[in-house]
């Protein structure tokens, strides 16, 4: 068997008071695209707007564009009118948590991460350190950052350096 390797090395973890960064590896990410009706038929229900993830049937579904979804969880079967692209290797998932996690985000992204404006379940597609990321709020103080694999180490180093400066 070929062994999966992470761009962050083995069991990457960074900790400072109020901040923990670690890799949340082992996830299946699939991009599906197609007409809304077709996608709904395939997945049961789908989010109507960008910004709020939907969780059902063991999947987290993000609307990432016009007629386009990201699914974290079991990949859907191929179907007529649906374009399926596996992307599990393309993103490295960084878990950021802790009482000062939002401060780390504020040092990295020009989006309002105040708890009243960025609640669990919400996500944003934005940039960290000039690279595209999807940031998903998975708890009051917990976030998943989907970074491009080839930039993941640069993003990790940027975030850990931001945490050093809090």
């Amino acid at each position, binding site marked *: *068997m*070929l*062994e*999966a*390797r*992470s*761009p962050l*090395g083995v069991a990457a973890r960074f900790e400072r008071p109020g901040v923990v960064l670690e890799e949340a590896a082992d996830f299946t990410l699939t*991009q599906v*695209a197609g007409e809304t009706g077709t996608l709904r038929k395939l997945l049961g229900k789908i989010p109507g707007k960008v910004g709020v993830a939907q969780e059902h049937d063991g999947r987290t579904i993000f609307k990432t564009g016009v007629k386009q979804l990201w699914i974290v969880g079991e990949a859907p079967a191929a179907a007529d009118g649906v*374009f399926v*692209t*596996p*992307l*599990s*290797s*393309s*993103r490295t998932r960084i878990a950021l948590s802790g009482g000062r996690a939002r*401060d780390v985000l*504020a*040092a990295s*992204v*020009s*989006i*309002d991460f*105040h708890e009243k*404006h960025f609640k669990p379940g919400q996500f944003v597609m934005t940039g960290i*350190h*000039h*690279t595209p990321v999807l940031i998903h709020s998975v708890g009051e103080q917990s976030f998943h950052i989907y970074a*491009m*694999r*080839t*930039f993941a*180490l*640069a*993003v990790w*180093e*940027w975030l850990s*350096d*931001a945490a*050093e*400066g809090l």
Partner: protein
Amino acid sequence: MTGFRRIESGGRVDRTLPLAFTYNGKALNGFAGDSLASALLANGQITIGRSFKYHRPRGFLSAGLEEPNGLFTLGSGAMTVPNAIGTVTELREALAARSQNAWPSPDFDVMAVNSWASPLFTAGFYYKTFMGPLQKSWMFYEPFIRRAAGLGRATEEKGNQRYDQRNTFCDILVIGSGPAGLAAGVVAAQAGARVIIAEQDFEAGGSLLCMNIGALETWRADCVARIAKCSNARLVTRATVQGLYDGKQAVMSIVDPATGNVRLEVIRFAAVINAVGAFERPLVFPNNDRPGVMLAGALRTYLNRFAIAPKQRAVIVTNNDSAYQAAFDLAEANVAVTIAEHRSSSSGELLAKAAQLGIAIFPNSGVADVLGHPAITAVRLGGRHAVTIECDALGVSGGWNPVVHLTSHGGIKPNYEPRIASFVPGGFAEGHFGAGSVLGHFGTLATIRDGVKAAQQALTYLDLNDGEEIEFPAIRADRAYGIQAAWTPVEGAESGKAFVDFQNDVTLKDVKQAHQEGYSNVEHLKRYTTLGMGTDQGKTSNVNALAIMAGLRGIDVANAGTTTFRPPFSPMTIGAIAGRSIGKHFRPTRRSPLHDWNEKNGATFIEAGPWLRAWYFAWAGSSPETAYIKEMELVRRGVGIADVSTLGKIDVQGPDAAEFLNRVYVNGFAKLPIGKARYGVMLNDDGVVLDDGTTSRISETQFYMTTTTAQAGEVMSWLEYLLQCHWRDLDVHVASLTDEWGGMAVSGKKSREALQLAFPDADVSNETLSYMGVKDVSFGGTTVRLMRLSFSGELAYEVHCPANYVQSLWEHIMRAAEPLGIKPYGLEALASLRIEKGHVAGLELDHRNTLDDLGLGKMAAKEKPYIGKELRFREAYQAPDRWSLVGLELLEPEKKLRGGSILFAASDEIKGHGRGYITSVTWSTELQKFIALGLYQGGLKHEGEEIVAAFPLKNEQARLKIVSPHFVDREGARLHA
């Protein structure tokens, strides 16, 4: 007799917390709550620097951010901070401060000789003196001038300071925490709005801190406490709003008191309340720069806030009522005070109070001269009362200038307001509100009322709860301001230097000279005299200068205009602007999924765009010049493996995918069989080559496209643009796989054997996987894509798989093919092998060349349409003398060829842009000579001709022969082996 003393009680300093610091290496003491300026004054340091041009002794003019003289270098070595403003630098334990622009000391400065030569240094001195005799003379003089004049010097040592940056959001940003700002902050905070109150000082209160009025201190402390109780509000001290920008954005710098580090916050607000206050301005009279001459408000601040008073006597000169309060406070601290009053009289209440405190007043009088050296010892009055008065300090008040800088950042010109003889903001942008003395309202109660009103307006604007009224302090009603403008010295003034701009040593005479020489527009005045430049940006000088120039021109001040204020509002270190984007964080580094393996196995890396790519490996040598040749030989004679994960990779799928590719590429893709790859070239809509690569057909409806590393992003955007804007009828979906898939090239005559060893269950024979064949195999639990492609010209394969497994797959192939002597090769060899083969790459695909320029015209389909087809045939693109691709062989073996060399015909004079240039160069292991690809006028029509390559930077020339760009295996036998 100049001197100041620390009063034993009072003020806001904490006498129980003494702080030790050094000044020019001398150990001194101050208290917590002191500024560097107040601590120096308390230690008798009156002369603290020398002026910019004349090296005249200088002392503190102010007690705030507007300070033009009191600049210091803090720290040492890598932690050196130049041009720190002493009046706003919070004293801290072990602070080390040094004076600037004075050697050996401010008290005895060798360069003070400049003052003797001052007639030479008039306005426009540099322009008149140092621009000749030659055109480049200024370049010669400049270093000497900068050494003689100037401010602090930045360190070049690398320090460990941190400059963090943060994005902050709020409903209402209140700039300033004086009475207006505090009132606005309390109202907005208590209404539930997200509020940031920014205060540049290390204590909140603004002008309230310099008053010694119990009721106001109680009110101030109560406001601060109320704000602190609101979790939705944040009062930030040591925080200067450096700029206000369009889109409701502000930039604020915050100083860490312990380390001096500066953090930058970019604030997005929904509304802003501008409560930045006003600066007192000096009066212009001879020798007004003597140490001990201060703004009257500064004398009051040093007294009431820092408990520092002139030793015995002070003179106050004023043209308005505000300075009387300074006089009264000084008198109550047992300082003998005399007032020189420009006006004929002041209010009865003031006169009565002055009489009660024993203060002598000389109406219709001003300062004719300031005596003493280096610091003030006496003042000679002019006007009606020509008397000389001994004193320790002179307090000056020429009126107050609202701080119009921040509104000006948004492009709003200030308006002249005759009522206050100064400028006020010319308006406010939507969602911007003003409060307090920035509006020209100078009474404390009036500014509090303004703050409440502005907060209520902002809350209404944001549709938030109405703010509630707050309690006002129980103080007497505001006094009238009563200003009578005074721009020039009084009658009888001496002829000494009367400074308008202290920091740039610009005098009244300089302004007059600028006017005489035609530089009378304020913008010209600024450039000609340097007035308003420097770290203080004319905070104390601009209005006086404008008014003087208006007088000289015989126009109203209102018509003289102002120069443009730009961010930052106060001096900032460059580090704060750069933030964390330095060193490895300057830009993100992109790493291949094989990066770790390459790193652990002797790769030397090279930056290629954002990528870090393996350049060459240690097994082949320790320098690129020798290593890449060994690596090339490995591929030509055995088998090598190279990381090609950086190639752009795009998933193209859908019922119309084949039609889509057929339109995008110049050659046909509609009939590409499943399991086959094809080399394709695409043009942009100008008919110029955009990119090339191979695209494989995986199924009837799915293709796997590869692009060059450099153009991956651009091609992806181009495809999306075409689908979304031009061909919405095509049922095609594209997705980037550049990060999803990684790959390696296994190249060389033994490459098939290598794959057979690595994938014993897969048939990779020539019959089943012929040249340009593609095959997906299942291996180790994942899909592995085998593509028989060759960049090197040898028998070769690309092996791709999902990036998570690429390293594991690479290690497997390395182990399996070890008996064949497989080794890794890097980018240098990869790029050199393709030159031998004559493949074009990024250096040739530079968005300037056509298909025909690159010798690829014949591959374009004649019948079908494709992007760029029409414009490809424009007359200029078909001109016979276009620079076109040629191969080049070096004819002089002892010489070296260099990329970028300019090509000339043998008979040409070596001059100008030549007839072309070398795009790519390498040593050929096959031909044992330097070879190159290049673009040459007329291209291969000149095949066989001898030409010259010139490299002017090294003054080198070499003779070359034009040959076919395909140096090895022209028949393609190796590819098809």
